[in-house]
């Protein structure tokens, strides 16, 4: 089947014998898996870091417990803030949930898979970042503005690198539709060792580190005024709102890990919505995401945080690797 035909089949839902109902169920399963799995991944990375530093560390489920604690707290709203501060966490979680629902994480044909274009998913993620940055600016505090400005600087550099590296994959698959790329890669396992994919993988890992605010770009466990980026931006959120922000960030992390896993190594993803396939898909996705978490946690342990002015160097390196991946893809096609 030609890539264009795959995309058309995805849009109309005829790619598999799966009906609309099971596909909706599969999408809901994806959102639930990422909503629970994202915080667990964060807990796992904290645990690996603690162990590598010779500490015992908090249990892996700690982020979930923190979420439960935050949700039970009283709602407090900053005095001079407008509705933007309240809406920002909702937009963040909603955009992340939509991106998760349509992406090929557990199953290759989630609902609306035909709309899961690389650009749609990347800009859904960007929508959440912009909402969060506006939320940081809204209360008018110094830290919020500083954090928003830094987060946008990094986001503006990371976004093109992410898009160009997905473009490198889509040249080969002849479609920028993410489920289409995953399906095409499943059909051609030999592609996984192609040079353009390896270059794009390195670029994407750097982008994921930047987008999820891990060391060496940002330190998620610091509240030191001069170095924090993400934490400065969300300083004015409290209680359930902060819980939503944390959940949204964890879902984005889960989505990015899952996308990297499935775009580059799509083994084990469910191709139809039978219960056995979906169970296997969730299990394999969890295992692959945990493997990526291990790699990123080890990078975190072994590197020091970069000075803010050196971050563009890192991200422009990722961008150039992505450009190289595209050019290599064009030349070897």
């Amino acid at each position, binding site marked *: 089947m030609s890539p264009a035909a795959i995309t058309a089949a995805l849009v109309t839902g005829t790619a598999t014998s799966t009906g609309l109902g099971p596909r909706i169920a599969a999408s809901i399963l994806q959102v639930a898996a990422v909503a629970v799995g994202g915080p667990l991944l964060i807990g796992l990375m904290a645990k690996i870091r603690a162990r590598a530093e010779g500490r015992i560390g908090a249990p892996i489920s700690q982020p979930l417990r923190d979420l439960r604690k935050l949700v039970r707290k009283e709602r407090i709203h900053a005095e001079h803030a407008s509705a933007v501060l309240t809406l920002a966490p909702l937009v963040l979680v909603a955009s992340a949930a939509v991106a998760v629902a349509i992406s090929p994480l557990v199953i290759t044909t989630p609902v609306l898979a035909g709309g899961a274009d690389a650009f749609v998913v990347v800009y859904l993620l960007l929508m959440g970042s912009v909402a969060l940055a506006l939320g940081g600016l809204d209360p008018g505090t110094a830290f919020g503005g500083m954090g928003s400005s830094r987060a946008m600087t990094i986001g503006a550099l990371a976004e093109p690198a992410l898009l160009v590296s997905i473009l490198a994959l889509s040249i080969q698959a002849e479609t920028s539709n993410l489920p289409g790329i995953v399906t095409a890669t499943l059909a051609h396992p030999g592609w996984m060792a192609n*040079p353009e994919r390896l270059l794009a993988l390195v670029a994407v890992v750097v982008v994921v580190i930047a987008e999820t605010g891990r060391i060496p770009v940002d330190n998620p466990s610091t509240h030191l005024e001069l170095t924090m980026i993400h934490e400065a931006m969300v300083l004015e959120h409290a209680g359930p709102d902060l819980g939503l922000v944390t959940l949204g960030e964890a879902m984005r992390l889960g989505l990015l890990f899952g996308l990297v896993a499935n775009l580059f190594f799509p083994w084990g993803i469910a191709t139809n919505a039978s219960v056995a396939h979906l169970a296997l898909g969730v299990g394999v996705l969890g295992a692959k995401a945990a493997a990526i978490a291990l790699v990123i946690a080890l990078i975190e342990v072994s590197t020091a945080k970069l000075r803010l002015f050196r971050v563009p*160097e890192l991200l422009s390196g990722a961008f150039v690797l992505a450009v190289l991946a595209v050019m290599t893809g064009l030349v070897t096609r």
Partner: protein
Amino acid sequence: MSAGTELDLVELTAGVVLACAVVTLWRRDLRALVAVLALQGVALAALAAVLALHTGDVGLGVVAGVVLLAKGLVIPNLLARVVRRDPGSRETTPLVNVPASLVAAAGLVIVAYLSAGRLTSLFPSPMTRLAPLGLATVLVGFFVLVTRRKAVSQIVGLLLVDNGVALVAFLLTAGVPLLVELGASLDVLLVVVVLQVLATSMRARFGHVDLDQLRELHD
């Protein structure tokens, strides 16, 4: 080995050679630069070995061995010795800063792809289509030579040019004659030895290896 796997391996190793060239622009730490250069040498040797296995050419197999020995082991080791005596040595102030160099590298790669079209159209085959990768490596090597200041970075640039030329040769003609490759490898080896002596005596006299500081002649 089937023709498909063999082509995949050639694509992979050629991609690694170019990626290593770009990484030398990315990193400032001279030790990392030398490690990347060693990786590039090994990738180049692997490419030659794959071609030798494919064509059954014994001479090419020997060339692969020479490349591995010279570019993968001996030269990086010599450079590592220069760097080790100067701990913490970094390319602190290149003439073009790192983000700009990386963008320039992207531009050079595109130039290489555009200009290699005519060359590869002379004899289109899956191997010759990869020649732009080697050309891009050569251009990036020249860029390193022009913009980096430390003696070690300069020699790394020279070696990038050499590796790029070798890559183009392997891809276009399935390898140069043994004698030529032997000569080129020994030549480069000699250059590295000379550089090592130069860098050592520079550090003994001036306490640094920054070539830009060498402006005037003294008695």
